[in-house]
């Protein structure tokens, strides 16, 4: 593993039949770093995160950390609607093998601001609160690396801002965060570094200013990103 990198994925390839979803993608994330994975639809963002999270198997390549040591927040809330918020947290805390389950559940309820909804069935929660439960489950084992797939897709602007405050706080505490997004502006605002995927290939990784410099754009980051994709033939 590179110096300071909490997570490395090397030469990841994934095929679905004839289609190559990922071709030899290598990425890394360091302690306290927030890394955004951006790219057009079908670029392979979710597939890459799913492989790092252990939800899918790659055809080639390897990941430096076992899936159990990585926190995973899938795009669609992976929670049981018929269970209450605390029952969901308790179940996954037990499956994660957390020591003091009740203490962990109480901590996550407090951290995600869901204490008042602890006894409500998840099916009765709003999309934003459901996503908070989803994130809380990903953080139960206090992972050093957190993966989030389109975390703000279902949230309104106020909820989105609260989510990013929460994630920034995690990063400040030392967690390496990788997230995928369609929202280029969100990536520019919140990420220390961006990774651009297109048609399963990694075509850029670095800071947002570096990407803008590649297309010599003097306009906003989103325009620079689109020009960059055109320049690379996507």
């Amino acid at each position, binding site marked *: 593993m590179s110096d300071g990198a909490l997570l490395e994925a090397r030469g990841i390839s994934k095929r679905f039949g004839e289609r190559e979803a990922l071709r030899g993608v290598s990425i890394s994330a360091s302690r306290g770093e927030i890394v955004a994975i951006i790219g057009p639809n079908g670029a392979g963002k979710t597939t890459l995160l799913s492989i790092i999270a252990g*939800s899918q198997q790659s055809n080639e390549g390897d990941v430096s950390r076992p899936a*159990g040591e990585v926190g*995973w927040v*899938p795009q669609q*809330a992976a*929670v049981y609607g018929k*269970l209450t918020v605390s029952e969901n947290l308790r179940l996954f805390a037990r499956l994660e093998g957390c020591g003091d389950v009740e203490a962990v559940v109480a901590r996550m309820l407090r951290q995600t601001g869901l204490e008042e909804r602890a006894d409500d069935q998840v099916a009765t929660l709003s999309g934003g609160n459901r996503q908070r439960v989803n994130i809380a489950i990903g953080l139960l084992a206090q992972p050093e690396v957190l993966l989030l797939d389109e975390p703000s897709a279902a949230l309104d602007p106020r909820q989105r801002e609260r989510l990013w405050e929460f994630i920034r706080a995690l990063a400040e505490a030392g967690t390496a965060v990788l997230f995928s997004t369609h929202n280029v502006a969100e990536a520019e605002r919140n990420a220390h570094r961006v990774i651009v995927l297109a048609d399963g290939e990694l075509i850029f990784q670095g800071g947002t200013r570096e990407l803008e410099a590649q297309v010599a754009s003097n306009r906003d980051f989103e325009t620079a990103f689109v020009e960059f994709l055109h320049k690379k033939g996507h």
Partner: protein
Amino acid sequence: MRWLLVKDLQILKRSPLLVGLLVVYPIVISVLIGLALSKGPSKPRVAFVNEVPPAANTIQLGGEKIDTSKYGQQLFNAIDPVRVDTEEEAVQKVKSGDVLGALVLPPDLTNKLASGLEPAHVKVYYNAEDPVKARFVQDTITAQVQKANAAVRKKLTKIAVGYLHLINQGGQFSFFGRDFDVLGLAKADAILGAVLKQLPKNSPVSPEIAGVQRFAKVAHDNLDLSDNVLQTVGEPIVVDQHVLRGGKTPLDAFAVAVAATVSLMFVTLLLAAGSLALEREENAFGRLVRGLVSRTALLAEKGFLAAGAAFVVTLVMLAGLALFIDLAWDRFPLWMVAVAAGAFGFAAIGLAIGGLTREVRAASLMAFMLGLPIAFLALIPSGSVSQTLYDVTSAISAMFPFKPTLDALNAALNDAGGLGKALLHLALLIAAYGALARVSLRRFG
């Protein structure tokens, strides 16, 4: 796996409609089947009109009095007669559904029987609104009329044999109140022999008398055999039954095994397929299998949940049925073995359905669409369809757990034999469908 099981039980607890169905279903089914088997009419209700005048019930045949009402009684052994006075009343009862059919004995029935010149007719009315009912009434009444026919034929044969005996051996014969002495062929032969001896050797009538004597002798000798011939004609085919394969399970006991198997099938299939598909619908599958639970452990947990619930439900159902039908409680350990093996067989195929369909609604639909025809195919008896078709249906049935579960339950409940073979068959199916379910999870996430 324990926590997943607890989670699934919590989810079940919060689905009162589903739990209600699981509890109510076996109770309702067992009560309905129990009532149908124990309290239902054992004989079909049939309206009966006897237009034969009471005096004409006894007919004179061959000097013997025959009470025809005695033979009509045979019919009532198989039906529950509802006596009415007129044909119109009987027809009305059939139309209203009060009775299954109506049987009308016309006034000239016994006269025709006595004359022996033309067959006597009886009338039958029934509703043929569905082919099953029509066949049932036809079969019941035809079988009973055939029995009555056979009884009358037997009586007539006995009378005919008596006539032949009289002709052969001679004796007293009564006709319209007058008694006659019948010489008989045997005596005629003896008399003619004695006459021949007394005639002169060259008597011109000797050859003619000798010819008549030969006829009397031949007729006497051959009529001796006629008793047996007539008895055979009276009952040309005697049924001698031998069971070659399968037990002698009574129909109601077999119905219990069928009902229990059907309940076991639906409860297990729906729970196994639905609970597995739910993991995907809730998006939890991907989260679970990334190191928290192995795919095989997840399948095992769902299998135990579905099989366990169906096991309890089916035993409750059998206990309910035992209130109506005499079941052998001393074989309870074997019931448990058969129900458990069947439950795991259905759970394995239910998991394969859940894994392949990946949606709760699609899984439920598929479970019903597969379960019903498989149950139907397994119940087709040999000989009711062509041999090739039966072989095909048997091969298809063998690929699904319904038939071996039914065999196992029938063996356990009714001591019909073949429990070991059925359990082995189920073990193979559990392994095969378990493997299919495991493979289906590759494209489940």
